[in-house]
């Protein structure tokens, strides 16, 4: 990270010019903890063993309770437990230097982040699904989804017209209740679809958990974040 100065006029006085940032601040006891944005819920359960094997202290995450801000007692890490959709927001603003989030979230909302590692855990698919039985969908189907952007660009790329119906959850209900003809949703095993009498028509894309890093933080806290990227990458390949 950039060198600090105790002088308020820093940057204008003569200091020895030094090329490079490596090592600076990494072992400094006064270094603030690394803030890590994590998605609450199912994905976190899939992530936790991998983070642990990458050397992140995760005991504090396994402790029961509803605390959303969890500081590792040794002071190296601060975890923020967030709604998955909000992970990129916290990291983009630099409130968290690092985050872990499903690629579906990144695809849907657009972002300006580094995504150095695909962890390969929490594997799911975004699929187009429709009623398992019954008539084929009309030429301009009504499509219910919470992935509004992914759905629009997928249909647009195929030149296929449709009516988009934006929902925020329980998307499977839409065809059952007659609100929509088809759904675009994320599936892991497909069991929820089956129980709601839906079948996968096409896979739109595969998604899994991704490590994201704030653009400035990667450079400013290189000595801290680069080893973390390397160990997360190593852990995700074993």
């Amino acid at each position, binding site marked *: 990270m950039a060198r600090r100065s105790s002088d308020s006029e820093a*940057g*204008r006085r003569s200091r020895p010019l030094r090329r*490079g940032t490596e090592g600076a601040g990494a072992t400094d006891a006064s270094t603030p903890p690394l803030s890590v944005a994590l998605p609450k819920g199912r994905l976190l359960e899939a992530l936790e063993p991998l983070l642990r094997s990458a050397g992140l202290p995760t005991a504090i995450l396994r402790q029961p309770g509803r605390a959303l801000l969890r500081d590792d007692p040794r002071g190296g890490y601060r975890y923020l437990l967030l709604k998955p959709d909000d992970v990129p927001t916290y990291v983009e603003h630099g409130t968290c230097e690092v985050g872990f989030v499903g690629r579906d979230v990144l695809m849907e909302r657009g972002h300006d982040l580094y995504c*150095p590692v695909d962890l390969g855990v929490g594997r799911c698919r975004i699929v187009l699904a429709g009623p398992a039985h019954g008539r084929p969908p009309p030429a301009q189907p009504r499509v219910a989804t919470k992935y509004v952007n992914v759905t629009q660009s997928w249909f647009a790329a195929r030149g296929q017209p449709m009516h988009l119906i934006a929902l925020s959850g329980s998307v499977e209900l839409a065809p059952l209740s007659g609100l929509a003809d088809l759904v675009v949703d994320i599936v892991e095993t497909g069991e929820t679809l089956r129980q709601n009498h839906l079948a996968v028509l096409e896979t739109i894309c595969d998604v899994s958990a991704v490590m994201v890093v704030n653009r*400035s933080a990667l450079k400013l806290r*290189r000595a801290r974040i680069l080893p973390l990227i390397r160990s997360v990458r190593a852990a995700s390949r074993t």
Partner: protein
Amino acid sequence: MNALRLPLGMRDLYAHEVSLREDVAAAIRSSVREAGYTPVTTPAFEYEDVVARGLGMLDLRELVRFVEPTTGRICVVRPDITAQIARLVATRLKGEPTPLRLCYEGSVVRVPRDRSRPRRQLAQAGVELVGVGAPAGDAEVIALAARAVARAGLGSFLVELADGSLAAAALAEIDPSAHESIRERLAEKDRDGLDRALGAARAPAKARRVLEALPDLWGDASVLARARRTLRTEAARAALAGLEAVAAALDRTDLRASIAFDLGEVRGWGYYTGVRFSILAEGPGVAVASGGRYDTLLGRYGRDERATGFAIDMESLELARDRKGA
């Protein structure tokens, strides 16, 4: 009150907010005027085709546009001031001898494409240096940017040098339809995704070797030596020599900040042709200032001159300054 609300991302400043902005602006202004830069102001909106001539393909989603009723032509609220100054230099200032040193303060408007950063109107202060080539011109404006943000109260920061021509030269050997996805993966430093995109594009081996190396080629000066061993193309040699020359020229200035390099940086305006840079500091999460060399932009407006410059993002600078308790 809701009837009187502002569009998303627009805001008023009042009293101490204005004072803070004025203090920061005054510090930057005094730094650039001392360095011999002459102030210019450019209009809030222009014809889109004129702006696009400089900026290249504009992402329509990021622009505020409207049709001028009297002419039917499309106008765009300026998303960038550098292209406007290039137009000014090639038209009204075409008889002025180089080097030309110009500075500006003003707002640009960009519609953010994702919802986490709703800022639309970005207050900027910057300079353009026309007619001075690399590396002297680059070192002059980079040192000036550092001096200006330091005088505005920023205590510690990192100056990062980059050069997009490495990636551009490698991309030129690949089917253009694959460029966007390759650029996106490069910008994300997503090694695996880049690998897949290069495979899907059937990238030739030489271009592939360069592009695959870029996500890891960032950090301190050792990156340049590492790049020289890995990348043996003509474009790589030229880009590395250019970065080294600028770093060496910076050594001879009053710059006292740490310098880092990123050879895989591909974001930013398409008009950059050589060394570009950003000033990074803790707080805002985005660069405090950024700029670079654009030796072909003025030519697009009819005056073939080399040039380089930078823009400071006032709000980010204020955030970074607050963080330091300045």
